[in-house]
């Protein structure tokens, strides 16, 4: 690490749990002061965040390499570039996201207005994770800032270099009264969760997700939980095997399979299995040569405990068709394909989160659907098939956070698509405008007035109640919609109509 950045141990001492109360209360006062409500203030902070990304590329890439031996391309593309894009979009679109949404007026209450005001929640806690430590912490943070909240981020202690960089840089670029970083492990997180937050955003495992949700109950804090699960890949025999093998292996090898949206296991027939393995072997050879351990493009397993867990799968589930090499000193596991995997094998009981790809053979798409539906809802479903009705059938008859046909992972990078799980894979969404909406309370506002007409419309509601009043108000309520002023919607059509007339006149004139 460069000479002027702070080490994890030094920062750890600074994050005294006793300070958490003070930090949260300080941010709470900042929020109550109304500072973050101003759009210009938020824009300034977002621009500063963008500068943080742009001016510290080197530091960020170095930390990612130290934490997980992430290659420069993966670190730059799948962390920094996505973060920059996200921040730029927020800067460009903030005004349109934040502006109140006015509803159409109604003839019955012409002077009344109704609109939806976008209001920040208050103090938001973002708990990050270790596999994409910057992106999965700072992208939600960006959304929370854009929505006008004060934010505390708690990066994962497992990716300690990345956590240290965030702890160093955030206070340098962002307003310290409104945005803070807290460092710590499970104990510190538990202490932190005793404080009152107005929203909690967590990315990580289901086990911890439940603990966070339970802690949020104390103050009835709403949460978004981005969890994981086993994302199945269904492949049928209509596909282009070479492309399919590449797209699946790309998803699996990215960050050594330590991606929440990584393809977890394959469901296919024996025939497809043979073809896929053939192509995957060619692909891996092309990409990483004969000794993939030497390829700098492959990262390493995040930490020892995780390595041990993955190592067990190599011996207790199925048989190795490809790969299987390990090196404990480097936390290295070779991209591996397992065959003859049974549904009850240990590798099929939990999310793999590593470079091991089991193939479970099935005899039909229906069997695949049954298999998927018998398990917790995954974060992603990947369907490889050229048959349109089969694609629709698999997608519609299963439940998953997201679904991709004929590729893997790419849906994550599309900001216009909400990203989030269902069931055990999580709740809530983010990315792009969905981040903004997640961290915003939509406040319904009705503005009436004291005019004669405005009062007359509502006067029948007062006691004493009579049948005439009931009938009249029932009629109004039943026909309310008919009085909505939609005529302004038809103006463009009318103008086009006039344009048609003008064009005929011009044609007549010149001909």
């Amino acid at each position, binding site marked *: 690490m460069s000479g002027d950045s702070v080490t994890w141990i030094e920062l750890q001492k600074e994050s005294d749990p006793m300070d958490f109360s003070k930090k949260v209360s300080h941010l709470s006062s900042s929020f109550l002061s*109304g500072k973050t409500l101003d759009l210009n203030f938020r824009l300034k902070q977002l621009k500063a965040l963008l500068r943080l990304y742009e001016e510290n590329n080197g530091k960020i890439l170095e930390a990612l390499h130290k934490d997980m031996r992430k290659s420069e391309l993966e670190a730059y593309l799948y962390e920094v570039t996505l973060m920059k894009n996200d921040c730029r979009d927020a800067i460009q679109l903030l005004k349109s996201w934040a502006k109140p949404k006015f509803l159409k007026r109604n003839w019955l209450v012409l002077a009344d207005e109704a609109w939806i005001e976008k209001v920040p929640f208050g103090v938001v806690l973002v708990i990050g994770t270790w596999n994409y430590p910057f992106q999965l912490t700072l992208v939600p943070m960006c959304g929370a800032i854009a929505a006008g909240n004060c934010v505390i981020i708690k990066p994962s202690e497992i990716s300690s270099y990345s956590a240290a960089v965030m702890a160093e840089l955030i206070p340098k670029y962002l307003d310290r009264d409104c945005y803070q970083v807290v460092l710590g492990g499970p104990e510190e997180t538990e202490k932190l969760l005793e404080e009152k937050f107005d929203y909690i955003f967590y990315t990580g495992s289901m086990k911890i997700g439940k603990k966070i949700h339970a802690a949020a109950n104390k103050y009835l804090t709403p949460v978004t939980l981005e969890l994981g699960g086993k994302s199945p890949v269904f492949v049928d025999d209509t596909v282009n095997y070479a492309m399919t093998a590449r797209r699946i292996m790309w998803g699996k090898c990215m960050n050594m399979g330590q991606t929440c949206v990584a393809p977890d296991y394959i469901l296919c027939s024996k025939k497809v299995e043979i073809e896929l393995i053939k192509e995957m072997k060619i692909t891996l050879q092309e990409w990483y040569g004969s000794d993939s351990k030497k390829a700098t493009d492959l990262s390493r397993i995040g930490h020892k405990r995780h390595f041990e867990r993955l190592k067990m799968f190599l011996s207790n589930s199925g048989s190795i068709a490809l790969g299987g090499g390990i090196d404990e000193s480097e936390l290295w596991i070779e991209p591996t394909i397992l065959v003859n995997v049974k549904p009850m094998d240990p590798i099929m009981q939990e999310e793999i989160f590593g470079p091991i790809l089991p193939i479970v053979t099935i005899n039909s798409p229906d069997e695949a659907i049954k298999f998927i539906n018998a398990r917790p809802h995954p974060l992603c479903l990947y369907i490889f098939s050229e048959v349109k009705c089969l694609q629709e059938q698999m997608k519609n008859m299963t439940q998953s956070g997201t679904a*991709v046909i004929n590729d893997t992972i790419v849906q994550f990078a599309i900001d216009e698509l909400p990203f989030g799980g269902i*069931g055990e894979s999580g709740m809530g969404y983010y990315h792009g405008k969905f981040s903004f909406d997640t961290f915003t309370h939509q406040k*319904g506002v009705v*503005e009436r007035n004291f005019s004669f007409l405005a009062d007359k419309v509502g006067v029948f509601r007062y006691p004493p109640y009579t049948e005439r009043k009931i009938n009249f108000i029932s009629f109004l309520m*039943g026909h309310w919609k008919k009085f909505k002023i939609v005529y302004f919607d038809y103006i463009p059509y009318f103008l086009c109509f006039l344009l048609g007339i003008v064009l005929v006149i011009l044609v007549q004139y010149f001909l």
Partner: protein
Amino acid sequence: MSTNMTSVITKSRSAFSSERTLAVSFRLAQIKNLLAMINECQDEIVSALHADLRKSTMEATLYEVELVRSEIAYFIRNLKNLAKKEKLPMNLLACLDSGYIQREPYGVVLILGAWNYPLSLSLLPLIGAIAAGNCVILKPSELAPNTAQTLSKIVPRYLDTECFHIYEADLEGTKELLKNKFDYIFATGSTNMGRSVMAAAVPHLTPLTLELGGKSPIFIDDSSDYELATKRILWGKCMNLGQTCIAPDYILCSKNVEKEFLTVATRVLTEWYGTNWKQSLDLTRILNEKNFLRLQKMIEETKGRIAFGGQMDQQTLWISPTVIVDIPDPSDIVMQEEIFGPILPIITVDSADEAIKIIKSRPKPLSLYVFSKDNSVIQEFVKRTSSGGICINDVIWQNGWEGLPFGGVGESGFGNYHGKYSFETFSHKKSVLQRGFSYMSEKLGEARYPPYNDSKLRFFTTIIRHIHSFNVNINWCRVTSHFFAGCFGALVLFLYLRYLK
């Protein structure tokens, strides 16, 4: 676990697995059947509401039945559109790919109704959950037993009995029910209830919406029309005898406004309810003895002065509309918890700013009401306070306004519903991306594969940076219809020139 509960849950699960609720036509048919139910059983429903709360026909009809009718009408008009795939704009760089958001049901939804509006607070979420394609178990509040029994009787006659169930249970039964896994929980009730429900949802990672309550403050400034403000506030307060989650809870105003309010209030209440308010049939009753005693305690132990009202009759569960003034400090018994009754405390403040400070020092309310003719004052409240919703120069209206989301924030709850927001609440937004195996599709994504090098990095960075510029944000339907409008204009003039001139 009772046999009945097991069977209801099992039936719902297998009904959802049968996938019949996925068809929009099925959902629409069920919603239309609900409309038939409301139309054919209206009298029975109104009687049940009267038996539970002594609700007058007007309140039962307008603030229960009509609200349900409006919600049904909304979905009949809009369900097909709501359920459609929401397509992303085409991107020229990836024109062979398509992305869209598909809204799907969660599965088996549990709805816990409330007792104060036992019909609408049960059926409004039910309609939304059905519209979104879920199977539903609705547990109406046992504290409004007549309405619960009526729903148990009539709903199975109109709705599919495999997919939709009315499950009656008391508090213990509800706790047992909550031990089971549901795919979504929607609960309306008190903050304590909210905590129990959330605690039950956690082990199953069940998402939920909690519609809770809180003390909804009203600020009246000196510029208001006191007559109209007073009438509107009293209307909101007396509706269901104050037992409304968005009832105006307490007033913040100057001493001068307080004086005006009291003058108008006594006159207006007499106009409405005669000289003996207890005898008016338009006023409901307190739900039960427990709530009565809670409110009685407030009246007896407040350190404030009763300006008018204060009459109580335990036998008939009657409490008179009561206004309390000169409250010496914020920890007074009437300012501790949501009143949920016909007691209206007035706290005097010197300015809008002081009122805002008081409001911000308390838990976020479900509603906030501001009465003022001064737009800058109104904007202060709208921008500087946080509440579930706001109504300016009236009360309650934000609840029934089509197009507005209804829900709390902070301790008044989270999530929202009504109309389109109900549909969103009970749906999961599944992102779908469709790619192909064409040459172009593969070429575009090829640079992502190892071995990594600088030119691949540069290529992808540029693509990701500029991809949005290649979005084609054209709504082809709109373009076509405008084009036809133009052609129609041309045709009209052409025919006029040719044949009529």
